[in-house]
């Protein structure tokens, strides 16, 4: 993957049935140098993401280019809550239920300030809830979520690569190589960190605790 340019590094999918709001959110996102795709419904969003719906709405949509699932790389989905048919909440649920899509961060927008609605969305896994009209200061909050998701998937890929390498090195099939277990433990930096904090400040500690772990 190498060095991606700072601009257009992330692709955001915006979902809103209001034409004006789509225009506004697109402008805000493009100003932040994101690549943007806008759709006007939840079902079109799922179509774009590669999931087929049971009841298909009009397949002819000029604003959405049909692309195979491999080509589509979406780093964040921002959706309006109140939409006819599939609401933003329904869309959120469908995304979180999908094994291929659940790691994509989802943000909800709404013109109505309803606390129960907000908490329901956050509980279902939405990263943020923005009240409309959405401002630049809201859009500035999106980057950390996309970076976190990116690092998480990179870590997972590294871990899978590591396991593959060790497996190919293993000669003995069933036998669990002790070195392999050690390597797997090192791949979970969070657990080790917590343990070392629980152990407290040991006077014996002469070298940094995180020796050997990848620090991001």
């Amino acid at each position: 993957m190498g060095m991606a340019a700072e601009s257009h590094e992330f692709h955001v999918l915006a979902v809103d049935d209001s034409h004006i709001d789509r225009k506004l959110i697109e402008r805000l996102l493009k100003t932040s140098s994101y690549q943007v795709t806008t759709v006007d419904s939840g079902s079109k969003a799922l179509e774009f993401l590669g999931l087929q719906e049971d009841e298909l709405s009009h397949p002819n949509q000029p604003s959405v280019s049909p692309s195979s699932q491999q080509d589509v790389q979406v780093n964040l989905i921002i959706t309006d809550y109140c939409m006819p048919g599939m609401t933003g909440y329904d869309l959120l649920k469908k995304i979180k239920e999908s094994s291929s899509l659940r790691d994509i961060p989802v943000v909800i927008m709404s013109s109505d300030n309803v606390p129960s609605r907000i908490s329901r969305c956050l509980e279902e896994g939405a990263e943020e809830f923005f009240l409309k009209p959405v401002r630049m200061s809201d859009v500035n909050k999106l980057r950390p979520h996309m970076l976190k998701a990116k690092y998480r998937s990179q870590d997972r890929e590294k871990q899978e690569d590591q396991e593959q390498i060790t497996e190919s090195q293993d000669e003995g099939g069933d036998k669990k190589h002790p070195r392999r277990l050690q390597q797997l433990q090192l791949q979970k930096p969070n657990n080790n960190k917590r343990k070392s904090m629980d152990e407290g400040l040991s006077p014996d500690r002469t070298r940094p605790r995180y020796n050997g772990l990848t620090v991001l």
Partner: protein
Amino acid sequence: MDGGLDLLQKQLVDYVASLFNEFNQIQSLQDESNPDFVVEVVSLFFEDSEKLLNELAKSLDQQDVDFKKVDAHVHQLKGSSSSIGAQRVQNACATFRHYCDEKNIEGCLTCLQQVRNEYFLVKGKLEILLKVTKQSTSRHSYSQLHS
């Protein structure tokens, strides 16, 4: 005699400046690379709103008024006026929705009139804003109106 004209001119400049402040949100999204943004969004707002107002008049004119449909239209109008910064239209829509909830036809009709009035008021303002924006973009005299 010149003094009166100067005062009028100053008032006009102040008024236009206040429009830029009032619609600061959409104004801030316009730049050299997107010089037509404000025009596009405002034109869209005019189109959408007038379509909705017509739909509302038609829906309220029915024998059996479908209040859910009326409410949906008002909700849409409330949303777009909020996005553009048309506060008074937005507020009038909020009141309208209450009458929809109560299925109060008289109340709805009064509100529709109110929303209409507020809409045409803001349309006037936005048209001035558009005119000045177009002039500013071509003459690069933007800074004069931004305090």
